[in-house]
């Protein structure tokens, strides 16, 4: 029965015992309908991109319809080939993989030190990291870019990867998790003569799989979406990522339909990842922000 399920309801103002009243029954049905509508609003833009991707430019510019006149996959393929999207996918893949690795390694090490080793004076470092959580590097993009040029790493993926190694948010996530690992485990290992790196690889990493997955997913979606620094660093290098291409549309004359199809291509990988890891992602979202 539809309403029986309310017996198990654990949170919120409507309690299981309320459901006997007809007005609460009505209310609960309305709530479900409203939520379904919200989900529809959330999904519609993505569905529309898919539909509109099948329109040609005349249809798109002149027809007052949501649905395309035909579903011809060749149209998508044409744009895919014409824009050489394969290359951008590959570049994005390289970029994303490196970013995720850097995000886990560098922020993990930092958090390991801040959360488990706690060397004398670590609070200073932690304070600095916390401040950078709130003042993102985009505000000083000019100087960041200048730094990258000075060490000669422009037009390469390396600075894009390493940028993910300095992410205060991931440090905080890791640190919170590491703090939950019993200090005795670390101390016991130290008594056994284990070095700090050994403890990291033998104890911390195996115990931290859940948080590594969360950070990896965050880093992957963030790296896929990242565009400003990649645009400045990679544009014109042949290493352009999908987002660099999308961003450069803003001042390259490209017909709207090609832009639209490129947008469609750009949302496919994150959608797939989301489909596979939806649980981890939605759980992680709440975990991540509890402390903010």
């Amino acid at each position: 029965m539809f309403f029986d399920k309310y017996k198990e309801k654990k949170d919120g103002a409507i309690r299981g015992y309320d459901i006997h009243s007809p007005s609460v029954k009505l209310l609960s049905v309305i709530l479900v309908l409203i939520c379904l509508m919200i989900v529809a609003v959330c999904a519609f833009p993505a569905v529309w991109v898919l539909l509109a991707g099948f329109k040609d430019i005349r249809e798109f510019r002149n027809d007052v319809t949501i649905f395309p006149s035909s579903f011809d996959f060749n149209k998508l393929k044409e744009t895919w080939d014409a824009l050489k999207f394969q290359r951008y996918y590959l570049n994005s893949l390289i970029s994303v993989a490196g970013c995720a690795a850097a995000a886990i390694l560098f922020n993990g090490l930092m958090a390991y030190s801040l959360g488990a080793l706690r060397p004398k004076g670590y609070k200073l470092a932690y304070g600095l990291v916390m401040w950078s959580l709130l003042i993102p590097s985009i505000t000083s993009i000019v100087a960041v870019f200048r730094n990258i040029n000075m060490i000669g790493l422009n037009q390469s993926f390396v600075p894009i990867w390493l940028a993910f190694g300095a992410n205060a948010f991931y440090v905080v996530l890791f640190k919170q998790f590491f703090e939950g690992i019993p200090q005795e485990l670390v101390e016991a290992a130290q008594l056994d003569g284990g070095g700090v790196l050994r403890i990291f690889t033998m104890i911390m990493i195996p115990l931290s799989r859940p948080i590594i997955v969360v950070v990896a997913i965050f880093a992957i979606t963030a790296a896929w979406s990242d565009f400003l620094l990649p645009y400045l660093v990679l544009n014109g290098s042949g290493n352009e990522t999908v987002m660099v291409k999308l961003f450069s549309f803003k001042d390259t004359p490209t017909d709207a339909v090609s832009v639209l199809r490129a947008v469609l291509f750009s949302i496919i990988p994150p959608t797939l990842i989301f489909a596979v890891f939806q649980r981890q992602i939605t759980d992680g979202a709440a975990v991540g922000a509890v402390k903010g």
Partner: protein
Amino acid sequence: MKKRLLVTLLASVMILTNLAGCASDGGDTATNEDEPVVEERAVEEPAVEEPAEEPAEEPAEEPVTVTLGIWPEDTLVEDIAVHEGFVATLAETHPNVTYEPAYYRYAVDTFMPMVESGNVPTIFEAWFTEPQKLIKQEAVADITDQLAARGWLDAISPAIKELLSDANGRVYGVPRDAYALGLMLNVELFTEAGLVDDAGYPLYPTTWEDLAEKAVIIKEQTGAAGLCLLAKDNSGGWHFSNIAWAFGATLCVDNGDGTFTSNLASPEAIAAMEYVKSLKWEYDVLTADPTNEDWGTGFTALGTGAAAMYIGANDAVNQPTQVNGLPLESLALCAIPAGPGGQFSLMGGTPYMFSKDATPAEIEAALDYLVVFGKSPEVTEASIAGMRADNQNKADNGVPIIPRFACWVGQDILDAEAQIIEELGNVDTGMYQSYFDATKAGGLRTEEPGLTQDMYAELTKVLQAVLTDEDADTAALMETANSNYQALLDAM
């Protein structure tokens, strides 16, 4: 809590200052080591070569790599094939040179980053608005010596040469071609609206008032917008300046002493802006959202039949046709309409420019590429072949073949070009007659002097205001734009 924050902040400032010191010290040395791009090291000395007719004859030359930013973009498969032909030709005469495709479309916001990182292609196309800015920033190579040795220096038409030179007369670019703005027409829509003469030629508007009236007819008869007007970015101000001239306005006065006076609030300029406003609120003949139209979407609107008229130049005829699918015979180009102040066509062009890091040998090799591409003042077998290949390819792709504007003064190159166009011509010249008549009659005018892009930006803001607000006070807006622009000119 407060105290802890303060301590953290102070400590961080101290540490950062130290770090900053280290980083920039370390950075400087790194720069020195890292700056030159690999292939340039090979040829540091201004190479021995005479400004050779046949540079390839000289044996055992150092290998040179030229990155070609003028390579066609990925989607233009046939164009790429043509360029691959050029590379093959050059491979025989220039065995030491590697020509690398590096499609680059000049983009304002990534150009300087690319200069910093030494990744600007050896040769690239800029916009005619850009050379002075790039020269001032020392972001492009001085090619005066190479041009002089080839005898090209005197072959560039003087007005254009000036746009590519600095105050000392050093030259930094080679003109690809020149353009003049005209009014592009979608003949299908004109026909549908009954605005054609007996021979099928569109009855193009001759004055701006005429344009508004014809646009109304088109909108009534076809439902399509009469005119696509730009108001998204600086190209809006760019097109507007041409309209303003027709109303008798001069937008910026060069005082001759290095200072400029803004003149955006003259009665003529305000009248021109009032006219634009009336296109929206009185005649209602514009596309749905001019503030979202830019150079590219304008051609889409024209090419897909969403708008019947659009300001466009002779060098962009591939945009409505090849790019946006308008049949060749459905494109016409007429003169920019006249106004109370006369008839003017804004003239400019596209220059080839060279990376500031390019060595003389690389510049020479890039110039040789232009010869084979048929974009030089030299009339040789190779250059004619290149010109023909280029035009043949246009013909194959449904791009109208029409004369370009002369950027070279040599008669032989002009004749050679005219002959090829005659031979390959694929359009009814009647569709372009009034355009070429008008541009020959005088009325060609280069862009306003003095921070032109800033002027366009100010004008675009006014355009956006009058096109989105029926009650906008045009005179007051122009007055504001005028003082904003003057402030920028004063701060120069």
